[in-house]
C-alpha cells in the first residue's frame, strides 16, 4: 500500500519527518503550550492565595482556580505534549509514515473539544470539585463529558501510535529492534491505555449520575478506580520523560545506553508494576485490607522503584561514558563540569533528572509507605511531592525537549537564546525551593486545597506553628519566581515558533530513507568490562541512596512517636 506523503530530512539533526506526522506533532505541541499558559496564569491565583500575607482570591474563586489549574496542567498540558512525543517516537525515530493521519486528526479534535468543554464547565463556577472530583460531590455534567471526550481522543492517539509501529515493521523502515526511546514510548502508551480505560470506567457512570440516570456511585469504589486513572496518568509521564532523557543523552552527547538489556528491562518492570502505585492514595482509607495496601503500594516489592533507580544510574552513566570517550577523563567529575551547561536542552534535562530523583522520588517512596502515609496524607506535602515529579520531572523535561524541537521540528531559529539559556535554571531551581518549602509545611501538617489556614473567626480555630506560616510565605515567593520562569519559556517558544527566523527545511523526498543498521561499535564490544565505566555517576548514585535511606528512617522515627493506632 502506498500513501501520498512526503518525508523531510532535517539538515540540523538528520531526523526524518513525515509530513502528516510533522503537522500533528506541531499542533499537539502548540496546544499543549497553550494549556501550559492557561495553567500558569491560574497558578498565580493559587500561590498568591496560599501565601498567607497576600491571601488574594475569594474562597469560591480560589477553589475554582485550583480545580482548573490542576486539570489544565496535569491532564491537558502534559497529555497533548505526550501525544506529540508518541508520534515523534514512532514516525520520526522509525522513519515511517504515521498510520491513519485522518483518525489522528479526529483524535486531536476530540481532545481539544474535551479540553474546552471541561474548562468552560469549570470557569462557569459550578464544577469546583478539584481534579479528583470525588463523589458524592458533583460537578456539572459537562465537566465529566469534557474529560470523557478528551480521554477517548487520547486513547485513539495511543492506537495511532501502535498502528504506526505496525506500519514501520511492515514497510521495513528499520531493522532489528526498535530504538530504546521508542521502547520507552511504547511503555508510556501501554500505561496510557490502562490509565484512560480506568478513567472511562469511573467517569462514565459518574457522568450518568450527573444527568440523573444512575442514583449512586460508591464513594470508595470511585476513589479506588479514579486513582487508577489519576495516579497512572503520572506514570505515563514518568515513562515518557525518562524516554526523553535517554533521547537527550543521545542527542547532546551521542551517548549510547550503557546496556540495552538493563534499560529495556527497567522499562519492562514499569509495564508490569508501575500502575499498582494508585494504591498510594488509598493508604489512609477505610475498608481496604492491609495486604492489598502493602503489595500494591510497593509496586509488588518495589520493583518499579528498582527500575527507576536503574534509569537513575544508566542515564547519567551513559552521558559520563560518552564524555570520557571524548577525553573528559580527569578525576571523577570532569565529564560533568565540561557538560554543555549553556544548552537549555541538556541543562533542563539534568536539572529535571536530579530534582525528580532527590525531591520527587525519595519523597514519593516515603509517602507511599503504608504506615508512613499517615504522616502526610492530604497535607500540602503531597502537592510538594508531585510538583517535584510532574513539574521538575515532566514539565521541565518537556520544556528542554521543546528547545531542541524549535529548530528541528518547527524550523525556526530561537529568539532570545540568552533567555532560553537561563530559563531551566530559573524555573528548575525555584521549583526545587518551592517543593522543599511546600513539603516542609506539609511535615508541619498544613492542609492541601485549603483557602484559609488561619481559620479566621472560628471559635475552634487551630493555630499553626509560626514555621508553617513562614514556609507558606516562601511557597508564595518561590511560586511567583517559578511562574516567571515558566513565562519565559512560553515567551521564547511562542515567539520563536511564530516570529523566529525561518531555517532551511532540508531535503524533501516522496519516499522514506530507511534506517541502515549501524556497525557494532568498538565500545559495544567491550561490554562486561571488569572496570567501572562511569565511576562519577556511581558516586552520585551512592550519595542519592544514602540520602534516601536517611530520609526514609527519619520518617519511621517520627511515626514511632505518634499516638498508638491499631
Amino acid at each position, binding site marked *: 500500500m502506498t500513501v501520498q506523503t512526503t518525508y523531510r530530512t532535517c539538515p540540523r539533526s538528520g531526523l526524518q519527518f513525515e509530513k502528516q506526522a510533522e503537522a500533528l506533532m506541531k499542533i499537539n505541541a502548540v496546544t499543549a503550550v497553550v494549556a501550559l499558559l492557561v495553567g500558569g496564569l491560574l497558578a498565580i491565583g493559587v500561590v498568591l492565595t496560599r501565601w498567607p500575607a497576600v491571601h488574594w482570591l475569594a474562597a469560591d474563586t480560589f477553589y475554582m482556580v485550583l480545580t482548573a489549574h490542576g486539570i489544565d496542567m496535569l491532564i491537558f498540558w502534559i497529555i497533548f505534549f505526550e501525544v506529540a512525543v508518541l508520534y515523534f517516537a514512532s514516525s520520526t525515530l522509525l522513519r515511517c509514515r504515521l498510520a491513519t493521519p485522518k483518525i489522528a486528526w479526529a483524535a486531536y479534535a476530540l481532545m481539544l473539544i474535551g479540553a474546552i468543554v471541561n474548562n468552560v464547565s469549570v470557569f462557569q463556577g459550578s464544577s469546583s470539585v478539584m481534579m479528583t472530583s470525588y463523589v458524592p460531590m458533583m460537578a456539572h455534567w459537562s465537566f465529566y463529558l469534557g474529560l470523557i471526550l478528551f480521554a477517548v481522543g487520547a486513547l485513539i492517539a495511543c492506537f495511532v501510535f501502535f498502528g504506526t509501529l505496525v506500519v514501520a515493521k511492515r514497510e521495513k523502515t528499520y531493522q532489528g529492534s526498535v530504538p530504546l526511546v521508542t521502547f520507552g514510548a511504547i511503555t508510556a502508551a501501554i500505561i496510557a491505555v490502562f490509565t484512560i480505560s480506568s478513567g472511562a470506567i469511573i467517569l462514565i457512570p459518574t457522568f450518568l449520575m450527573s444527568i440523573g440516570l444512575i442514583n449512586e456511585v460508591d464513594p470508595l469504589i470511585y476513589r479506588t478506580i479514579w486513582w487508577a486513572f489519576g495516579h497512572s496518568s503520572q506514570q505515563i509521564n514518568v515513562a515518557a520523560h525518562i524516554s526523553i532523557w535517554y533521547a537527550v543523552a543521545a542527542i547532546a552527547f551521542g551517548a549510547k545506553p550503557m546496556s540495552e538489556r538493563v534499560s529495556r528491562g527497567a522499562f519492562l518492570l514499569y509495564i508490569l508494576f508501575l500502575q499498582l502505585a494508585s494504591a498510594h492514595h488509598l*493508604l489512609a482509607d477505610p475498608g481496604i485490607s492491609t495486604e492489598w495496601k502493602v503489595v500494591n503500594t510497593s509496586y509488588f516489592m518495589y520493583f518499579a522503584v528498582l527500575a527507576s533507580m536503574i534509569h537513575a544510574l544508566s542515564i547519567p552513566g551513559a552521558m559520563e561514558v560518552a564524555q570520557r570517550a571524548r577525553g573528559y577523563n580527569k578525576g571523577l567529575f570532569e565529564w560533568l563540569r565540561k557538560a554543555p551547561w549553556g544548552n537549555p536542552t541538556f541543562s533542563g534535562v539534568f536539572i529535571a533528572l536530579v530534582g525528580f530523583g532527590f525531591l520527587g522520588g525519595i519523597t514519593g517512596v516515603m509517602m507511599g509507605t503504608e504506615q508512613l502515609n499517615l504522616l502526610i496524607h492530604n*497535607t500540602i506535602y503531597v502537592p510538594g511531592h508531585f510538583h517535584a515529579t510532574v513539574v521538575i520531572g515532566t514539565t521541565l523535561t518537556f520544556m528542554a525537549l521543546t528547545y531542541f524541537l524549535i529548530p528541528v521540528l518547527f524550523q525556526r531559529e530561537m529568539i532570545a537564546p540568552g533567555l532560553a539559556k537561563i530559563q531551566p535554571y530559573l524555573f528548575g531551581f525555584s521549583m526545587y525551593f518551592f517543593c522543599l518549602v511546600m513539603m516542609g509545611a506539609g511535615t508541619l501538617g498544613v492542609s492541601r486545597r485549603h483557602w484559609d489556614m488561619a*481559620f479566621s473567626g472560628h471559635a475552634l480555630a487551630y493555630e499553626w506553628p509560626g514555621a508553617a506560616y513562614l514556609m507558606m510565605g516562601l511557597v508564595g515567593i518561590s511560586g511567583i519566581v517559578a511562574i516567571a520562569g515558566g513565562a519565559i519559556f512560553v515567551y521564547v517558544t511562542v515567539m520563536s515558533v511564530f516570529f523566529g527566523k525561518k531555517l532551511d527545511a532540508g531535503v524533501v523526498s516522496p519516499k522514506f530513507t530507511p534506517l541502515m543498521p549501524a556497525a557494532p561499535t568498538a565500545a559495544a564490544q567491550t561490554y562486561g568490562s571488569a572496570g567501572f565505566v562511569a565511576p562519577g555517576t556511581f558516586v552520585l548514585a551512592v550519595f542519592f541512596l544514602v540520602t534516601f535511606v536517611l530520609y526514609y528512617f527519619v520518617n519511621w522515627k517520627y511515626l514511632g512517636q505518634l499516638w498508638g493506632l491499631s
Partner: protein
Amino acid sequence: MSAILPPSERLWWKHPLDRLEAVWIGIAFVWCMVMFFMMVFWHVYGKQNLSTETYKTTPDKFSAAAQAMVDKYTVRTETEQNIPVVAPPEGTDVYMIARLWNFWPILELQKGKTYKLHLTSMDYNHGFSLQPTNINIQVVPGYEHVIKVTPNESGTFSIVCNEYCGIGHHEMVGRMYVK
C-alpha cells in the same frame, strides 16, 4: 549505537552487564527488599498501624450511635453552638461525625488509655487531620472506620478537615482533649 537508533547489536539481550550496573542493581534490589519488609516488620512490632476494621453504615444509623454516646457521657458544652464535650470511659466505642462543615462532638480522652474511635462522613469525603500530632485519615461517606487509638500525650488537639469538601471546607475544624 544510540538510544534513538535501533540497537546495532542484534542480539543486544545477550550482552553481559557492565560491573557498574550489576553492582548498582544488586544494591538497589537489597534496598527495595528492606523497604518492603520494613512495612511488614512494623505490622508485627510497630505501634502505629491503621486499622482496616470497616462497616457499611448510613447517616441515620451512625448519628443514632453518636447521639447515644453523647447522651451518656457529656460533661459540658463549649462554644456558642454548644458542642458537647464527651468524656467516655476507657475502652469504649467513641464516635465522631464529619459533616459539612464541622466535626461533632468534642471528645475528651485520657492519656495512655485505648478507645475504639468510629469515623464516618454524613455527606462528602472529609479528612481527619489531628494537629499538631499530624495523624491524617481519610473519612469516606457510607463507611464506618473503626480505629483503636491510644493518645500518648495530653493537651488540646485540633481536627482539621484536609479533604476538600466544598465552599466551607476551610471552616471545618474540630477539637479533641486528652487529659
